[in-house]
């Protein structure tokens, strides 16, 4: 009696087990490598979750661009790109499982949008020598250089490029200009602190104060009072639009601005800054790594056409441009690798060696600074443009300014 029962339950358990694992099996079986006509590329996109406001237009941009490459250009050298994309919901744990899935599916390389998501996936990729790049990046991703690349300059590069421009074009006084930094309490803000630590002396600038704020601040009068007493010439803010607008407004109230120069990094410089800051934001400088909509560059026409056909809501959103450019770079990397090693010999390692590392002044349709690989520098594009808010609009006032390479890994204080 008892034995029968054991058997019955054992059988039931086995059945239940098989039933539950079949879907897992089918979904999880080892992927075959890219072969024949298609080349697989993985995309981990923060389409939903707390960063959806940026992630969504970015996701739209890359998917539209892949559609464009596949339909109008007939893929890369006649080989269609198979897009495998997953929504990481801006969740670090999920990004870690997605990267495993992308490797498992036989992708040749992968991309992601944000530095946080790349941070959560990069060591898994590095350990497997699976190359990838991140649209927005942070120093920790590319220093020391391994298998992860950054598409656009990071927030530290923003600062370095701006300082270069400032010293050459804006600074009128004598001696070293005195700069105060106001940083958001996350890597966006602190990337600037690291860059300033590494380069301030060399670039001839004096950092007099480093203040920090949170994303939810409602008053920065207190920190600005302290900055004011130090009489800086320039206040550099690395943050997002809302805190930036608060800081600028409080600076106006305290009578600091106009008077000193205020500049901000690319995460702040959006139309939301003008909405929130109103008249206070007038005259503020900022840097941004891409061109504007409607600028006269080669890739603009097709991008505008696709955007208006498929995602008209995204028209005017700069984030869409960043990932359209990402798509063009993906195609270029694949083109180079196919040209160098042939379609049959493509492996993740070959793509990194003969795709990523052969990038040579690819102009990305003029959408952002040229893409280049220099040994030891895993930043793909290194240039930003300087903008200024004039009459309620963000106007470009410079050409491409290149940010110098900072060898963070040589400094003792940089995280190992």
């Amino acid at each position: 009696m008892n034995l029968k029962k054991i058997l019955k339950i054992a059988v039931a358990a086995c059945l239940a087990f098989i039933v539950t694992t079949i879907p897992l099996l089918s979904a999880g079986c080892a992927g075959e490598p890219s072969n024949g006509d298609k080349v697989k590329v993985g995309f981990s996109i923060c389409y939903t979750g707390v960063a959806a406001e940026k992630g969504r237009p970015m996701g739209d941009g890359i998917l539209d661009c892949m559609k464009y490459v596949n339909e109008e250009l007939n893929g890369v050298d006649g080989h269609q790109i198979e897009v495998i994309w997953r929504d990481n919901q801006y969740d670090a744990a999920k990004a870690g499982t997605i990267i495993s899935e992308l490797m498992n599916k036989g992708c040749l390389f992968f991309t992601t949008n944000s530095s946080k998501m790349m941070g959560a996936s990069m060591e898994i990729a590095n350990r497997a020598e699976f190359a990838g790049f991140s649209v927005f990046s942070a120093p920790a991703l590319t220093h020391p250089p391994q298998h992860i690349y950054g598409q656009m300059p990071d927030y530290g590069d923003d600062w370095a490029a701006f300082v270069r421009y400032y010293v050459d074009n804006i600074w009128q006084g004598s001696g070293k200009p005195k700069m105060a930094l106001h940083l958001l309490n996350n890597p966006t803000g602190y990337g600037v602190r690291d860059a300033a630590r590494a380069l301030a002396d060399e670039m001839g600038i004096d950092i007099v104060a480093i203040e920090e704020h949170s994303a939810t601040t409602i008053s920065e009068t207190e920190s600005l009072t302290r900055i004011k007493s130090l009489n800086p010439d320039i206040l550099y803010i690395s943050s997002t639009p809302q805190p930036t607008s608060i800081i600028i407004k409080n600076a106006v109230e305290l009578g600091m601005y106009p008077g000193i120069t205020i500049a901000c990094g690319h995460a702040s410089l959006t139309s939301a800054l003008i909405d929130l800051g109103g008249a206070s934001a007038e005259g503020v400088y900022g840097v941004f790594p891409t061109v504007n909509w409607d600028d006269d560059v080669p890739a603009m026409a097709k991008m505008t056409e696709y955007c208006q056909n498929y995602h008209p809501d995204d028209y005017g959103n700069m984030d869409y441009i960043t990932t359209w450019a990402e798509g063009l770079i993906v195609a270029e990397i694949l083109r180079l690798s196919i040209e160098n090693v042939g379609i049959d010999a493509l492996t993740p390692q070959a793509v990194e060696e003969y795709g990523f590392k052969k990038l040579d002044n690819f102009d990305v349709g003029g959408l952002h600074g040229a893409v280049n690989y220099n040994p030891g520098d895993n930043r793909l594009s290194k240039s930003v443009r300087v903008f200024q808010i004039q009459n309620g609009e963000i106007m470009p006032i410079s050409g491409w300014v290149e940010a110098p390479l900072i060898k963070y890994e040589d400094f003792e204080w940089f995280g190992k």
Partner: protein
Amino acid sequence: MTELLQFVITGVTVGMVYSLIALGFVLIWKSSGVANLALGQLVLISSWFTYGMLVQVGLPLWLGFPAVILFALALGWIIEKFALRPLIAQPILSLITVTLGVAFFIEGATSFIWPKSVAALPRFFPQATVHIGTAVVSQEYLWAAVISFILFVLLSLYFKYHRMGIVMRAAADDQLAVQACGIPVTKIFSMAWMLACILAAIGGILMSSIGGITFGLTETGLKAFSVVILGGLDSFLGAIVAGPIIGLAESLGGGYLTPLTWPGVREIIPYITIIIVMFLKPYGLFGEARIERI
């Protein structure tokens, strides 16, 4: 010296804004004994609703504000009716957790309806700054301070003299006894949540007219928690006094400790304060110490 004055004035005015949000928390605690962790989310959704009415629909102010108040009433009623009422007489752990569930839901609903993450409300208050001695303060904060003080007075009077207010206090004290007196407890809870949502809406409008509407509004709820812990969970007076204290601690602590420690020390001062308060005065400055029996 000029710095000190500026720090004090900034701290007090910012602290009054915290008080305003904290009053909504105290209201619910005082009448139903529920800890509302969805406070920040209520602030968030009512700010977005205000944005929807004033900017997206384009209503004038005199029509937009009543619409927001109506919305807040409805929101309070719905939350109480569908999330809290089924849990009456459940352990405190369930009651706290259910407000977390409500918080998640509201957060999702907000990004569902308003997928933008940042928006600006029209400016209700004059932009000119006010000079007090050598210090400056923007009018928005002053108005917020005045409004939270008025609300404090109204609420205190209401709870002291109005029949409904007295009943609310009684209900918090002993639900069973109140029910035995023939008073519908559920109606009281419903009422408390509706009032609390109105407070959150007013707080939301003031906060977002200062700093714009962002996801970060949810964290203002956390600041309010420090205020109520310091002031006492069941005391309006506590909320109105503790707000400026927390604001001052932030401002003075930030002002004089930052050079000695790491930047951003201001952010954790409220949290350190409340942990210390818990040891010294577990029921806050003005909270009622409850005597427990088995």
